[in-house]
């Protein structure tokens, strides 16, 4: 009985779990794994928020979401108002509630985190966004009178959508240019349906177009138009580049061009954007081996390995050259993968992919690693253990070791500086590039990172673009 008595009045450490699909069931479908809170659960969890006078959680949020205020509204059962409160600073609550690494941001600094039970801010954000969507048409903020200024936003991922929404509300005429046939960027081609349903991304995109933003798909800036075309012939007053870091890296080991070797980008694009998991109803095919190895330890690797299972792989492996502690993927995603039966091969590095006589993968030669001294990233450097080579019995390999900058835009914009990795040079406080009138944010200035950092850049860029358009000062 003594256990039930709270140590301190008002301190509830029972962080409420969110219902999820059973692992045995969910690996047979592409439906969302997490099922979300009910209204009762949301109110119960919201009650745990102490509504700190100086909320650390807000400082921990790149999108500056007014966290204690929206949670307060949940306590009162005002779910729609809570959703609108979030949307004052973040146009993508249903997305961020699902894919943000809250444990490294708002929830990490929550005072209750010290007691091991931070308020489930992400789950609450997700709940109110979904609640609002279920009520029908989204309520729109007041839109300022037209300023007569035109802004081109290149890329419709989280950074671009955020810039577009914020500038539209300020009265600017915004056009988003998207290279693919569907808006959403990494949210539609990269993150799988079971983690972020595409209908939710579409809902957020529809909300943004409902603010008056024009969306042009099938336009590859750098090819169909150059940045200079946009600023001159097409008459835009400013350009925002939020094109992501979409160029897949390979390991440059022998056998990487064998049939049955994919980049995670290709594997996920086929499955997510092109809906190859519904082949032949959808025309795009995808190959899935019986024994699949995904090389890498990030969120994208988790998405790929879990997709492979759902597409019918009998065995799905993660192959990672460091140890579990160094894996960059979210703890939650690693747990999900484990529950689903993914096999983790830690401290293992591929050195060659072996092919059969028809050019298909038939195995992967690997070497065991041990951790040495810390490297420049602060993580202990993996070092090969001599003589520990072995062959993994796999018939498909997915490379998920990261992505880099796509040179399409920089190569056609000679007066805009890029760094030695090809990322666009931009002031992180203003998102200004070295070319007048051109701003950039998201992965293309920082390297592959997270959705919420892209949203944060989008907010910064919108503020600075507005300032530039109204004052003319660069």
């Amino acid at each position, binding site marked *: 009985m003594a256990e039930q008595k709270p140590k301190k009045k008002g301190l509830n450490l029972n962080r409420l779990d969110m219902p999820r699909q059973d692992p045995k069931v969910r690996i047979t479908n592409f439906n969302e794994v997490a099922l979300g809170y009910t209204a009762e659960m949301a109110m119960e969890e919201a009650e745990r928020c102490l509504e700190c006078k100086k909320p650390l959680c807000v400082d921990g949020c790149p999108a500056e979401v007014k966290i204690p205020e929206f949670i307060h509204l949940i306590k009162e059962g005002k779910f729609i108002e809570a959703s609108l409160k979030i949307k004052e600073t973040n146009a993508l609550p249903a997305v961020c509630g699902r894919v943000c690494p809250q444990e490294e941001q708002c929830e990490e600094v929550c005072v209750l985190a010290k007691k091991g039970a931070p308020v489930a801010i992400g789950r609450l954000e997700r709940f109110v966004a979904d609640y609002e969507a279920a009520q029908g048409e989204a309520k729109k903020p007041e839109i300022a009178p037209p300023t007569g200024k035109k802004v081109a936003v290149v890329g419709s991922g989280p950074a671009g959508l955020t810039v577009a929404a914020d500038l539209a509300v300020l009265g600017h005429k915004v056009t988003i240019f998207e*290279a693919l*046939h569907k808006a959403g960027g990494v949210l539609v*081609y990269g993150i799988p349906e079971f983690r972020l349903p595409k209908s939710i991304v579409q809902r957020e995109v529809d909300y943004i177009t409902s603010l008056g933003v024009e969306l042009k798909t099938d336009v*590859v800036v750098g090819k*169909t138009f150059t940045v200079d075309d946009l600023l001159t012939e097409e008459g835009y007053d400013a350009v925002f580049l939020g094109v992501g870091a979409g160029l897949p890296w390979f390991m440059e080991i022998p056998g990487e061009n064998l049939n049955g070797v994919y980049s995670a980008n290709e594997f996920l*694009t086929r499955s997510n954007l*092109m809906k190859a998991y519904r082949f032949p109803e959808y*025309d795009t095919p995808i190959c899935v081996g019986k024994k699949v190895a995904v090389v890498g330890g990030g969120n994208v690797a988790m998405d790929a390995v879990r997709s492979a299972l759902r597409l019918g792989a009998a065995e799905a492996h993660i192959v990672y050259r460091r140890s579990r502690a160094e894996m960059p993927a979210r703890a939650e995603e690693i747990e999900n993968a484990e529950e689903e039966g993914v096999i983790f091969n830690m401290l293992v590095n591929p050195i060659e992919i072996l092919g059969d006589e028809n*050019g298909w993968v038939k195995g992967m030669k690997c070497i065991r690693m041990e951790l040495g001294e810390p490297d420049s990233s602060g993580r202990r450097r993996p070092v090969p253990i001599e003589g520990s080579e072995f062959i993994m019995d796999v018939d498909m390999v997915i490379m998920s070791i990261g992505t880099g900058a796509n040179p399409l835009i920089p190569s056609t914009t000679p007066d805009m500086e890029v760094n030695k990795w090809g990322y666009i040079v931009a002031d992180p406080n203003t998102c200004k590039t070295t070319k007048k009138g051109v701003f950039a944010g998201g992965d293309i200035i920082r390297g592959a990172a997270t959705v919420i950092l892209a949203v944060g850049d989008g907010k910064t860029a919108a503020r600075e673009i507005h300032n530039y358009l109204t004052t003319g000062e660069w």
Partner: protein
Amino acid sequence: MFEIVAKKEWHPTITEFWVKAPYVAKKHRPGQFMILRINEEGERIPLTIAESNKEEGLIRIIFQKVGKTTFHLGTLNVGDNILDVVGPLGKPTHIENRGTVVCVGGGVGIAPLFPIACGMKEAGNRLITILGARSKDLLIMEDDFKRVSDEIIITTDDGSYGRKGFVTHALEDVLKSQGDKVGEVVGIGPPIMMKFIAKVAEPFGVPLTVSLNSIMVDATGMCGACRVTVGGKTRFVCVDGPEFNGYEVDFDELMMRQSMYKKQEQEALERFKKECPQAFEGIGEVA
């Protein structure tokens, strides 16, 4: 949506469209290609551009029906729309006056060769064209090429038109008789043809450019489906190409990679035959 404004059937398996795509037409330069997707369920396929009309905003595409998507595309008519057209993609051809240029095209590879041939001619080159097809009825664009070529040689595998034999035989003769004047050979066709063009041309030491048609998804450098080994390095056909030094391309790897989805392609085609038998009218057994 991109409207089809003209259609021509070269053969029951080869169709030509003029499609309204003003942005693509405006920027298109020789050597570049585009991506299309017919409808919501469709796959994204790369197609070459045979010509562009910048004033009217039109592009000309000529394609061979080989799988579900191309057979489906062939059923579309004037007034119908293609859901997505993206481009122009890839790097344009490097065009300069090299004296004499030999353009060699095989099958529907003749289509993307046309803008390059025109560009080479405009740059002041003497243009020798070699076009090859399996038989007379499969030969396309002869009249177009006649307009711009200083010399034209047609070959058919079965001898039903022009010279009997392959384009490589004709190329060898040209290089033997006037190889010292030839500044560049451009060869576009099936990989096996390009592989043999490289074999034939190499002893003459003449620069060879080939254009590759690999499997692609986004075609903007994002997926790597199109990767191919060139000069010992992995390159992406969509952004690093589609044109490469013909002596450096690993054509065997290219052919192997093109066969990656053979099984699924066959399955989709069989399914489409049942769904839409009219798309296959006038065609014998499709491989």
